[in-house]
Each structure stands twice: as structure tokens, then as C-alpha cells.
């Protein structure tokens, strides 16, 4: 059952994604001001939402991990934290491309850009602590993820004020309904893929923990045959 869900999600994504690409590039008209480059919007926005979503998921899972010592929550936190980095990388690559076309500048220190960038850094720190921290640092990493999730709205709000005290050259693109219609399938496909990847990665992490269990049991002289010979 648990194994099946990612497969189903990936299958759905495999069907929906080509369809959504077709819609985006062939059915929806080319935006007048920006031209073809505007198409990147259909990938950029879903990735940004996925990044925020998994940032919050990671924070919540980490809180459960701390309170309950739950392995499942720990595995989900790790997987979600890594997904934030992957999706964030996508956001940080597509964003400046789009920005370059629409604003003439790849990076304008806009509120969303800074908050995305900082959030990404927080989760890179999370993965670094998990990888390189000493024994017991999984709790430290969990606290880091919780602070990170809480940071998301704070950063966003702070940067917004920072910018409003200063005129900004933000271009707000108002979307015609057909563009929204094309956005949903793309979001669905990417979200399904991301969720499947997180599920697979979490399962992998759980397997690793089980493997550690098995390793410990195999080394245990009272259980294995190794002990009887000594």
C-alpha cells in the first residue's frame, strides 16, 4: 500500500505532465509583453509553492520528531528538507530567467526573491547539520527546521516592509483565466512528482534505519551464531 502510492503518483504525473506541457506551449497564447519566456511562469510558480509547502511539512515533522521520537516523522522531515532544496534550486534558477525577461534584471532584491533565497539557505543548513553534525545533532537539526518554518512568513513580511520604504520596480503580471487553467495541471504534475519523491526518500530513510537495526542485531552475540563460537 505505502509502496504503491509513489508509483501511482508518478504514473499520474507521467500522464499529466506531457499534457500540461502541450497546453502551456501550444494552447495558451503567447503573452504580449513578455513573449515566450513567460512560459517559465508555469514551472516557476508551482515549484515555489512546493518549496514553501515542504518547508512547512519539514518543520511540522521535525516538531513531531522532537516530541515523540517518531522515526516516521524524522524520515519525512529529512525527505521534505531535501525536497525544499531541490524545489528551491528550481525556483532560484527559473526566477532570475523570468526576471531578466520581465524586469530586465535577473535579481531585484524583491521580497519574494529574498525570502526564497533565505529559506533555501536555512534548509541547506538543515541538511548540513544532519550530514556533518555529531551524534545527537538530529535534535539540533529538527529545531533548525522548526525555526526555519517559522521564519518563512517573518522573512517575507520583513522584506516587504523593507521594500515599501523604497520604490520598487516590481511588475505585477495579472493573469487571464486561461493562464490559470494551464497552471493547475502543471502544478498537479509537479506536486505529484515531488510528493512521490518525498515518499520514496522517506521510505529509503526508514529502510536505512531498519538496516541499522538489522546490522545491530547481526552483531549482537546473543542472537547471531557469531556469539556462540566465542
Amino acid at each position, binding site marked *: 500500500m505505502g509502496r504503491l502510492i509513489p508509483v501511482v503518483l508518478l504514473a499520474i504525473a507521467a500522464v499529466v505532465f506531457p499534457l500540461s506541457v502541450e497546453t502551456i506551449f501550444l494552447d495558451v497564447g503567447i503573452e504580449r509583453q513578455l513573449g515566450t519566456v513567460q512560459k517559465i511562469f508555469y514551472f516557476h510558480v508551482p515549484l515555489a509553492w512546493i518549496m514553501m509547502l515542504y518547508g512547512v511539512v519539514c518543520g511540522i515533522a521535525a516538531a513531531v520528531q522532537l516530541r515523540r*521520537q517518531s522515526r516516521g516523522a524524522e524520515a519525512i522531515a529529512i525527505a521534505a528538507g531535501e525536497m525544499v532544496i531541490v524545489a528551491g534550486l528550481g525556483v532560484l534558477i527559473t526566477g532570475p530567467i523570468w526576471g531578466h525577461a520581465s524586469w530586465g534584471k535577473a535579481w531585484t532584491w524583491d521580497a519574494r526573491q529574498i525570502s526564497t533565497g533565505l529559506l533555501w539557505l536555512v534548509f541547506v543548513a538543515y541538511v548540513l547539520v544532519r550530514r556533518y553534525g555529531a*551524534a545527537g545533532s538530529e535534535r539540533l537539526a529538527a529545531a533548525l527546521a522548526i525555526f526555519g518554518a517559522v521564519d518563512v512568513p517573518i522573512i517575507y513580511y520583513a522584506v516587504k516592509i523593507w521594500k515599501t520604504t523604497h520604490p520598487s520596480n516590481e511588475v505585477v503580471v495579472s493573469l487571464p483565466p486561461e493562464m490559470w487553467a494551464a497552471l493547475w495541471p502543471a502544478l498537479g504534475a509537479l506536486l505529484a512528482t515531488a510528493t512521490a519523491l518525498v515518499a520514496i526518500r522517506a521510505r529509503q530513510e526508514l529502510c536505512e534505519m531498519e538496516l*541499522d537495526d538489522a*546490522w*545491530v542485531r547481526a*552483531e*549482537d*552475540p*546473543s542472537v547471531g551464531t557469531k556469539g556462540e563460537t566465542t
Partner: protein
Amino acid sequence: MSEAVTPLELDGIGKRFGRLSVLRGVDLRVEAGEVVGLIGANGSGKTTLLNIAVGLLAPTEGERRLGGRRAPQVELADRMRIAFVTHTTQLYPRLTARENLRLFAELRAAAGDAAALPDPLLERLGLAHAADRMVGTFSRGMMQRLALARALQGRPQLLLLDEPFTALDRPGRERLAEVLVEERAAGLAVLLSSHDYDAVVAVTDRVVLLEGGRLGGEARRGEGPEAAGYRDRVAALGLLRPSAGVDGRAEEAARA
């Protein structure tokens, strides 16, 4: 002190750090008025076990009971009754001996429990002359005694000692043994880890051997005539060799 609750019960304790399994299925009880010695080679998990008993580490599996109650976490009320002394001594080097004691006494008082006065304790552990010296200038042995004084000032029901005899000279060891015997008579439960064969034999009622993270054997002092064979039974656990004195060497020769 007369209540018959068991100060410390560890039931099936296991501790792992990833693939490293430090403790497996350790069952250990320490009764009131009992001094239990924990022996084992370096890396056998003695310190980890003491850290779990005192609540600095959470066990991966198994249950910890303090004073008869399950203690998934060692709460503040539990910490009132437990004292922990390690070979790192955990004293502030920039404070004097008396200030070190007073800080912890005041912290305890703020938690609603009066602590013993520092001076009689310093006297009892032979530190009265150094009460106003900075702890940073103390020898290891003096620090160890001061750490013990701090542990005793809260009148604990359970005392955990991690290698208390290292760095103590012979008189220091004897004094520590005396103090332990007195406190045992008053109902204190003690769990101590040590490498020192003579000291362990002298002060403990029971010795358990920790081997590769699990209990590998036990020796009891026993009553009356049995008590005489305690030395041999401890030696028979196989880890600690009688080290000091002609006595010890003779015993070893006899065994060989």
C-alpha cells in the same frame, strides 16, 4: 528513608547511535542502602548507562523507573533526589569551592528544597582549609571531593558516580569509601563505575560486569562467611585483576 521503593530500576535498556549499539537489554536495579559497582572495559557502555540513569541521554529502548515511577524523562522532581558525579568533576574553575557549593544550594533552594550547609560538608570531605580558594587551583583529587560534597548537599536518594576513584590518592580513596559507607547506612543507593579493583571490592555490595553493552555477570558480597569470598568472585568476573598489594598478586598467582 524507610520507604521500600527502589531508587533506580533499568529495564531492558538499549542505546544506539545509528549503527553503533552501545547498550543492549540491560536490566539493573539499585536498592536503597545498596552500593553497586559497574565494571567493564573502556567502551563497554558504563558512562552511557550512567548518563541514561541520570537522564542526560534518552534510551533507545527499555524503561527507566525512578523511585518506583516510570520516568521517560527525568523531571525536575526526580533530579532533586539524584546526584551525579563524574571524573570530569563539573565544577566552575573561576569560582571558589564555597561559591560552587553555594550556587547549587541556592538553585536547589529556589526549586523548593533546602540543601545542606556548605561548611560541614567541606569539613567532612577535608576541604575546609581550601573553601575560599578558586577551584581552578585545585588538584584533581580535591576537585573530585568537592564534586562529591556538592552531590551530597542535596541529600540525594540515588548517587551515581562515574569513575570516582581516578585521580584520588590512597587517603582520598579511603575517605571516599568511608563517606559511601556512612551514606549507605543512611539509606543512600549508589551506582558507581570503576576500574579500581581494590576500591570496588572495598565499598560495593554487588558488582555487575558490563561487556559489549550487555550485562556479563554479577558478584554479590553476601552475608556472614560468604562475604570473605567476595574478592575472588569479583576477580572471577574476569575483567579486573587485583592490582595493588602483595595480597592481590598472591591471589592472582593462586588463580593461575
